């Protein structure tokens, strides 16, 4: 019998070799208690959280938590059904209305996760004779959406406007075209040149889908994302987003002005063939989304945090993913996985949690320490974080 697991042997060996060095397993951390959006107890130690997607710090908002509790009491713990059968409650409609109001768009469709939103929309709207043109650094959920459908998949070099245009021009006349872009790319924290890319896509007759998972609530005047910030949101056909980042719970969505969007509720398999979100989750999401509409002060503070951490880390001598802060994500580039894991552990010992990111999630085989800031990180905490990076960086020889 062939062991089907033998294909994982190289990864098992790499992992064992890393753990043999005595380093704490970076992919097995348990948060024993969570005190706030920015502090948890890990291994009995108070730890500042700098590796969550809780950009706007909504997870402990009293109104959000109260809405969830009320929904639990009034609607129970789960729907036990698909959105198209018994799984649409008043709360599901209410959160879709909140999204329509937030984005000022005609239609909103809520999925059980952001991953499923990309999987469902991309695989369903692009059919056999169609072409999907996408950035090579696209998220796994976008690639999986492509793999699940039957369209021709054409990648182009990251954020390269000319490469996108060349490919669009070569697509046979008459074929359907979908360009898939992200507002913020989550590994390096860099932003796409959406203004130019959306214009090029429209000029070549393509529909445009933008994943704004990492920009919602924070980037753009109303927090609608990079497309809003660059003034092209009206030219984008579909925006995909998630509740698991700034909104502070779990779930995914597509908002659009396309007059026929509602038909997707009947033909999109990742929407139909799964249970809908629990009532407490949609209630927390709706409350959070409505509060995010009115969060200009928090957005301003988050930008301050991002700028200060970026400048501070640079001054300490770390190599960062972007020359200037472009989002709430700051990627610290590590020379290799061993050094990255050592630095990650040293930071944890200092009392700081960041994400260790490695291939295949990262571009160009890089190992990254990904820092994601929260609007509720205080000025003092940002100071503490920089102190911890200095100490851990010197202890591991990452900086001198």
């Amino acid at each position, binding site marked *: 019998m062939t062991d089907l697991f033998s294909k994982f042997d190289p990864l098992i060996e790499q992992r064992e070799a890393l753990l043999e060095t005595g380093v704490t397993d970076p992919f097995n951390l348990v948060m024993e208690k969570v005190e706030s959006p920015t502090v948890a107890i890990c291994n009995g130690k108070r730890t500042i959280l700098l590796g969550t997607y809780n950009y706007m710090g909504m997870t402990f908002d009293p109104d959000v938590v109260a809405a969830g509790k009320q929904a639990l009491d009034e609607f129970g713990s789960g729907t036990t059904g698909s959105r198209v059968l018994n799984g649409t409650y008043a709360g599901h409609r209410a959160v879709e209305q909140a999204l329509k109001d937030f984005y000022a768009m005609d239609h909103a469709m809520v999925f059980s996760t952001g991953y499923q939103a990309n999987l469902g929309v991309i695989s369903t709207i692009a059919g056999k004779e169609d072409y999907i043109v996408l950035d*090579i650094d696209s998220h796994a959920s976008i690639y999986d959406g492509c793999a699940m459908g039957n369209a*021709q998949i054409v990648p*182009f*070099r990251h954020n390269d406007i000319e490469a996108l245009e060349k*490919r669009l021009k*070569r*697509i046979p006349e008459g074929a359907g075209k979908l360009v898939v872009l992200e507002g913020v790319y989550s590994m390096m924290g860099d932003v796409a040149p959406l203004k130019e890319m959306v214009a090029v896509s429209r000029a070549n007759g393509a529909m445009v889908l933008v994943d704004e998972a990492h920009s919602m609530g924070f980037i753009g005047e109303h927090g609608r994302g990079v497309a809003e910030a660059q003034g092209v949101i009206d030219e984008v056909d579909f925006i995909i987003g998630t509740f698991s980042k700034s909104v502070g719970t779990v779930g995914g969505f597509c908002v659009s002005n396309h007059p026929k969007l509602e038909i997707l509720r009947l033909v999109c398999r990742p929407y139909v063939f799964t249970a809908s979100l629990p009532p407490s989750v949609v209630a927390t999401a709706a409350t959070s989304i409505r509060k995010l509409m009115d969060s200009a002060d928090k957005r301003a503070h988050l930008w301050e945090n991002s700028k200060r951490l970026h400048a501070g880390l640079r001054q300490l001598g770390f190599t960062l993913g972007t020359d200037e802060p472009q989002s709430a994500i700051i990627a610290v580039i590590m020379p290799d996985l061993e050094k990255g894991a050592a630095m990650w552990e040293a930071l944890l010992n200092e009392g700081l949690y960041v994400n260790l990111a490695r291939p295949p999630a990262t*571009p160009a085989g890089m190992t990254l320490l990904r820092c994601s800031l929260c609007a509720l990180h205080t000025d003092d905490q940002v100071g503490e974080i920089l102190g911890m990076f200095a100490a851990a960086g010197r202890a591991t020889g990452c900086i001198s």
Partner: protein
Amino acid sequence: MSDRAETYAKIVELIEPFNKKGVAITEATRFAQDLEWDSLTVLDFVANVEDEFDVIISMNMQAEIETVGQLVDALQRLTAARD
């Protein structure tokens, strides 16, 4: 030179800048196993081939192409379909 021989010669020329191991190229040379290219190298190489021949080689097509010879055949088909 026949069309196919010309295409083959051009492909060999386009492989050269990415042939870090100095592998001797034949029709049977495999991109992944013999040249040991990673996904970014493949992207750059494919972009150069696409520009040279003014075609699209989608990821779906790439999945079917393992060897230099198969790429040459695919290009023959693509350019014939276009012209």
